[in-house]
């Protein structure tokens, strides 16, 4: 699309400070049942032009985290503390009026469900040009020309005609493409993509992820890709943060994470996925139990009730997120691959702990 947007990214990329710095971010929701600690003490730094993958199951806090940074948790019962500095500006304490100037222009979001995030009674074209006219002061004609170019750039066929369509005239994949065009319209520096392909078919998912990756690289855009699918983050992110029960439990550059998993939860998550290369009827190493209740989280490590390596210490004392010095950090007393963890595992296996038996299944699978 337009030259002006490319210029914005290039100018700001000259600066050396990271684009986003999150420190000790916590969000809780006050409900009738009690306080839900949805996100607890999350910190990370995101450099310009990089993509961070946030992975977790439902209820892990991955969506609340991105919404908290964008200040979209507007319901009265939500409370966010900590800090999120975007290009030198603190977001968490910013008045909502000023946030409006950032949304769409500097920070944008692509949501999971393209049908509910588009307005069904407004033509797609107007939903794209809205931002251009409001934030960048484009004339109607300029905005339309840019809008059509945007539709073309997200590979919508016949963009001139499609510009005047309503969302219901688009297929699911095209709607998500339109949502991406809206998010990209003003050339944001930071894009949150919250499960952008979960509602889509596998062939369309592949294309949409490639499209996002292409725009991210070409525009030198910084991106946070939130997903439950480790397969989705693998080839498309520079760094991955794995969340469990509202906390980051492991974080590393993507290739390092996949080659040296330290946190038993990440390992269990990866080995519980059926792999396309495995033969039929391969026994899956399921994780026993279910994610914890965030109103009454277990004491100690939140994963301890489901962990194959669990020891008494894990149930009593929560492990801190410790950095190994190479950018790989994890929160575990008995990290995978260490001698201590092997002893702990052997002990649990002998005691017949369900989680250890499951890991045993996974190991036998790899060995055979």
């Amino acid at each position, binding site marked *: 699309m337009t030259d002006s947007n490319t210029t914005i990214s290039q100018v700001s990329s000259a600066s050396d400070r990271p684009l986003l710095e999150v420190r000790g971010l916590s969000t809780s929701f006050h409900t009738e049942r009690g306080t839900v600690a949805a996100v607890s003490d999350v910190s990370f730094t995101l450099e310009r032009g990089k993509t961070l993958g946030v992975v977790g199951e439902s209820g892990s806090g991955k969506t609340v985290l991105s919404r908290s940074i964008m200040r979209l948790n507007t319901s009265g019962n939500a409370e966010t503390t900590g800090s999120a500095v975007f290009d030198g500006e603190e977001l968490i304490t910013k008045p909502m009026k000023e946030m409006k100037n950032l949304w769409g222009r500097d920070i944008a979001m692509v949501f999971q469900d393209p049908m509910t995030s588009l307005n069904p009674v407004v033509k797609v074209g107007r939903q794209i040009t809205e931002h251009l006219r409001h934030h960048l002061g484009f004339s109607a004609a300029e905005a339309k020309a840019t809008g059509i170019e945007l539709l073309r750039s997200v590979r919508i066929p016949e963009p001139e005609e499609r510009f005047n369509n309503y969302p219901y005239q688009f*297929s699911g994949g095209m709607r998500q493409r339109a949502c991406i065009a809206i998010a990209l319209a003003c050339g944001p520096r930071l894009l949150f993509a919250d499960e952008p392909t979960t509602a889509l078919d596998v062939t369309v998912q*592949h294309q949409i992820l*490639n499209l996002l990756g292409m725009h991210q690289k070409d525009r030198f855009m910084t991106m946070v890709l939130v997903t439950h699918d480790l397969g989705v983050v*693998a*080839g498309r992110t520079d760094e991955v943060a794995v969340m469990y029960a509202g906390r980051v439990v492991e974080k590393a550059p993507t290739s390092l994470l996949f080659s040296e998993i330290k946190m038993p939860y990440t390992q269990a998550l990866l080995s519980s996925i*059926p792999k396309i290369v495995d033969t039929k*009827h391969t*026994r*899956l190493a*399921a994780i026993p139990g279910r994610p914890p209740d965030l109103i009454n989280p277990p004491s100690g490590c939140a994963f301890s009730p489901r962990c194959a390596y669990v020891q008494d210490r894990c149930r009593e004392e929560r492990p801190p997120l410790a950095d190994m010095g190479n950018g790989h950090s994890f929160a575990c007393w008995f990290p995978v691959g260490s001698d201590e963890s092997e002893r702990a595992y052997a002990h649990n296996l002998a005691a017949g702990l369900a989680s250890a038996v499951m890991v045993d299944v996974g190991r036998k699978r790899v060995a055979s």
Partner: protein
Amino acid sequence: MAGTGDIHLRDNALLRVKDLNVRFPVSGGRVVQAVSGISFDIMKGETLGLVGESGCGKSTTGRAILQLPKPNSGEVVFDGVDLTELSPNELRRQRTALQMIFQDPISSLNPRRRIADVVAEPLRVWGPSDRREQQLKVEAMLEAVGLDPAAKNRRPHEFSGGQCQRISIARALVLEPKLIICDEPVSALDVSVQAQILNLLEDLKVQYELTLVFVAHDLAVVKNISDRVAVMYLGKICEVADPDELYVRPAHPYTELLLGSSPVPDPNHPLDREMVAGGELPSPTNPPSGCRYRTRCERADEQCAVLEPQLRQVREGHFVACHHPLVDVPVSLGETRVAVG
């Protein structure tokens, strides 16, 4: 296929579906050909995976086996009886041997009822009249699916998604059916729970000598659970094979596209700048002539627009409906009907 043909059918199957057609009228007098002339069969104890993208007719096929709704034409022969020819009353009796598990475990359970009653419902209609016997059966069933029978007086909202799916499975199993149709049973679940349910289905299949039709869009999940996989596209079957064969040597260009689109948990997988566009399903009210996949197919030529490909055998037990398959077709196999079991 997409194509038609019944060369892949075998003798002595528990379920044989032949030339199944399901049409839905839509506004403007148009008709959606949801399922169009497909045939398949399942041997006793086998799991057939039906895989494809949304709109390919896989769920409609699963439901049409149960006559929900009755197919517009075709045979559904289950255990020697053609279900399409039964009177409503006879069908009700037959259906006790066929059960279904749905995608959304929470909305498929009545929120106002205790789970013991949910699971006991089929028994109240068809089971032993003695309440005590019913209760014992329900408790045994809950135990079998990995739930604590002590929780039987709770209501569905007190359970997680995975546990609700276990309750659905218990309800489906309580009449000891021969065939269970699983319609995307794990796609609404988290990955860690998904593995539990897949393992459970494999165990129950052995324990209760079940035959399964497993409808899903996730290729890896389908491969894990199936003995035979049928790939569907726009109401037709493209390819039928043993999963270990199909995933290594796909013969249909569509199967290859599906396999290439699956996310791989490998960080060295490169970004594919070519694959950013296309891939929209043609309208099912006005499907392409000839091979329905031709509008997205790189190999399509004039023949594909005119002539609908028929299923033919490319290897033992591996059938494809394509004029230009990705593997060579041995003449001896392609033309003769071979019984495979």
